[in-house]
């Protein structure tokens, strides 16, 4: 059973299901002509067929994972890379924050306004400290 593939298990599920359906069609079509024993036997048989069929479908759903191991690993790897890229984008935001603070300092220096220079220098120092602690 361990060498059964997901597709094969599903195929078996289909076959058992069809057998159950065939017994059901006969059972319902000839119900009045059947003895109690025959009804009981056929009822048990078709329920057993559908039950086995469902077990095969369930087994297939579990086996699917074995067939997909490589794909799952790859897609998870790519997803992790996307996460890391998004982190880098957050770092670009920090770089832009720093650049923005530097531009503000340059504008303040050009204005020769000591108060604006002081504020801008503090702003730049703050942004650099933020980036280092992140």
């Amino acid at each position: 059973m361990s060498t059964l593939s997901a597709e094969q298990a599903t195929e078996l599920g289909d076959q058992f299901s069809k057998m159950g359906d065939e017994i059901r069609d006969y059972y319902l079509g000839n119900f009045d002509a059947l003895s109690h024993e025959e009804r009981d036997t056929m009822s048990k048989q078709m329920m057993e067929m559908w039950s086995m069929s469902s077990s095969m479908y369930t087994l297939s759903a579990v086996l699917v994972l074995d067939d997909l191991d490589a794909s799952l690993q790859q897609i998870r790897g790519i997803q992790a890379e996307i996460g890391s890229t998004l982190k880098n984008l957050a770092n670009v935001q920090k770089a832009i924050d720093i650049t923005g603070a530097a531009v503000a300092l340059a504008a303040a220096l050009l204005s020769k306004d000591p108060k604006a220079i002081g504020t801008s220098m503090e702003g730049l120092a703050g942004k650099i400290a933020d980036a280092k602690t992140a």
Partner: protein
Amino acid sequence: MGKRKIGILGLIWMMLAMASCTNLRHVSDFSGSAKKGLASFESLGYGFEKSCLDKCFEQSSQKLELNPTCPCQQEAKADSATFVIYQALSAYLDGLNRLSANETARYNTKALTDQVASGSFGGITFSPEQATAYINIGNIIGNAISNGYRKNKVRQYVTEADPSFQELIRFLEFTLSRNLKGILRNETSMSQVTYFQLYRDPSLSTFEKRQVANEYFARKRTLEQYGKEIDIYVQMLAKIGVGHRELAENIDQWSLADLKSQLSILSGDLEELYGYYKKLQP
């Protein structure tokens, strides 16, 4: 700054605006719709374990047994396996959506631009036109750099991921449309026979038979509802697969109007299917 400088600023602004038109909107829209459609998985009314428990409770009810032991471990395992595939697809689409969304890389230069706009730098005063041009350039430079970076990353990831993405979509479709639908079909057949037997039981009165018939019709409707949910969900999966393939195959032609149009149609189809799906929800 004189009029000439404003003119130069305007020209630079236009050039940068054109350069930054790396429009990832179609990727973002598609991955957003795909993510939403895919997430309907979590509201599917039917599952492997549920089918097992339904069957177990129905049999216990017939035997008038109030404390049944339902061995459904294998079915729970099948649900987990299916969920693992769903989760991998969902996490990937979420990453792709965030990477292609404009909000991710729209850098906040508000603190700086507020200062510029207010002309608060001592001797330097900015006219509203100058301030606007300055602010726009700041934003566009930031977005142009990041858009180029994002474009390359999106191209790389979508192309690399497509074969695995298609395989996972195909197996999720397979598990739901063949295995889960198969179990649902079996449960419907079992239910039909069980209610038929009750209906033909000579010990039941006409009133009781009518109750049995009503119960059967209600059960049949519920099972049909589950079937429709699965069918629509599988259709959504197929659209998601086609959309991703379109994206991967045409990703080097970013300006291609056909790709955007195709993805837009697929996003529309997905939204429509999602609407049908939501209507089916109880």
